[in-house]
């Protein structure tokens, strides 16, 4: 039922899009219709596919770096209280920097290749991961920590057996946000300077007035983000079965 409604909504959206795009008053250069977009997808498929692959690699590697760094940072901040107090404002500040401004500087610093893209994706994605995981690690009930202390558990034992498993659902919440914004990060990175990738292709298409191709690229980018999100949800269900059961009960 839920999926049927989603599908219905999507169909409605596409129809409305087609309707608006068919209006005489709407310039073809501003808005490509779904049909034109579909045609562009088919005609430019190999070009789109090659560039999508480049972007996907940037997204996945950037996400992986963000996950490893984000988890490590959250655990370190959780274990060392002074570090948390000192690093938290910096953590927030790292997200206040406009990425659009930072991206070209990264390109200058790391040259033209994949480096700056990974840096930007990772910079955007580690924040939701770290902040959510930190909240999760702190969410453990005081009574449970007391019990672990009475059982003679070491700090690391409590972290491993209680705090980390308890904060897995929080980690996945962070990963879901990270997965959706990661694609935006990769596009920003490519806009700042790249010779391949879907973000660059879209930018190029825009300046060359190839509007249907731009929309085709957007569709692929959106699908990429949605698929990543769905993958995280799937992994979460496998990794935290207890969490789902409790929600039902």
């Amino acid at each position, binding site marked *: 039922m839920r999926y049927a409604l989603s599908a219905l909504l999507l169909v409605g959206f596409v129809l409305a899009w087609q309707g608006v795009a068919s209006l005489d008053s709407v310039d073809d250069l501003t808005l490509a219709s779904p049909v034109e977009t579909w045609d562009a997808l088919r005609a430019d498929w190999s070009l789109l596919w090659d560039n999508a692959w480049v972007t996907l690699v940037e997204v996945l590697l950037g996400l992986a770096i963000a996950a490893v760094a984000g988890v490590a940072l959250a655990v370190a901040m959780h274990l060392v209280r002074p570090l948390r107090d000192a690093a938290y404002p910096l953590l927030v500040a790292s997200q206040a920097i406009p990425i659009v401004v930072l991206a070209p500087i990264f390109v200058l610093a790391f040259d033209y290749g994949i480096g700056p893209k990974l840096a930007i994706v990772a910079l955007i994605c580690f924040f939701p991961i770290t902040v959510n995981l930190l909240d999760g690690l702190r969410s453990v009930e005081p009574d449970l920590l007391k019990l672990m202390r009475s059982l*003679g558990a070491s700090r690391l034992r409590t972290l491993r057996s209680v705090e980390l498993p308890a904060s897995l659902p929080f980690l996945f919440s962070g990963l879901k946000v990270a997965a959706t914004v990661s694609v935006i990060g990769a596009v920003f990175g490519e806009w700042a300077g790249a010779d391949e990738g879907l973000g660059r292709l879209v930018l190029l298409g825009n300046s060359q007035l190839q509007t249907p191709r731009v929309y085709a690229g957007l569709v692929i980018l959106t699908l990429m983000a949605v698929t990543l999100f769905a993958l995280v949800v799937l992994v979460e269900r496998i990794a935290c079965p207890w969490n789902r059961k409790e929600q039902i009960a």
Partner: protein
Amino acid sequence: MQTEAEAPATEPLSLENVTRRYGELTALAGIDLRLRQGEITAVVGPSGSGKSTLLELVAGLQEPDGGSVRVNGATRAAERREECAFMPQRDLLLPWRDALGNAALALECQGVPRAEARRCAAPLFERFGLAEFERARPAELSGGMRQRVAFLRTLLPGRPLLLLDEPFGALDAITRADLQEWLAGMLAAEPRTVLLVTHDVEEAVFLADRVLVLSPRPGRVLAELEVGLPRPRSVTDPDLALLRREALEVLRS
């Protein structure tokens, strides 16, 4: 007046003039308490009488502001923790571990590898009425079974002094009565030194050899009742009802 030197080092538990304050608030004011080996002592008191604080002081989870706590000769909090099997009010089972894994956690905390800890815990499941539920997640167990898994976890490390903080407080009346009888049977078969904290006077007189009645905040000992009834006891025993009334009268005075 007994001095420290006179107290034998093997005495399971002794509290001398123990005081605990939280800021302006005095939770416990001068508690004296001695437990005899193999004796079950219950502490009853109204909410806010510092019962849980008393238990956490003994368990080495808190330090007193005044007086001394001695468990099997251990005075430092870290040493006291090693002497005490502390059972909190709620079962606090980890939802991601199965029943066996939850029980084994107590041994893993002592550095026993997981597989070995599970092997050690497994034989006890039958005696705790949990046979064939080893692999069940806590969400699949009834409240009474969860509490028994928590008991198993508490007893597994084999520490000498058992501390129970309202162990049946979170259960419905029927399950509570069942588990009280089950615990009485367990302790009859395998005597232990127990300090039980509860607000349920009936539970106290049913399970304990001796009942201490605590006053409202700041908590101090109002009365000490010897139960001295033969076991197994029955909740419908008129002598038990008499003792219960006596304890309630002290509480209400």
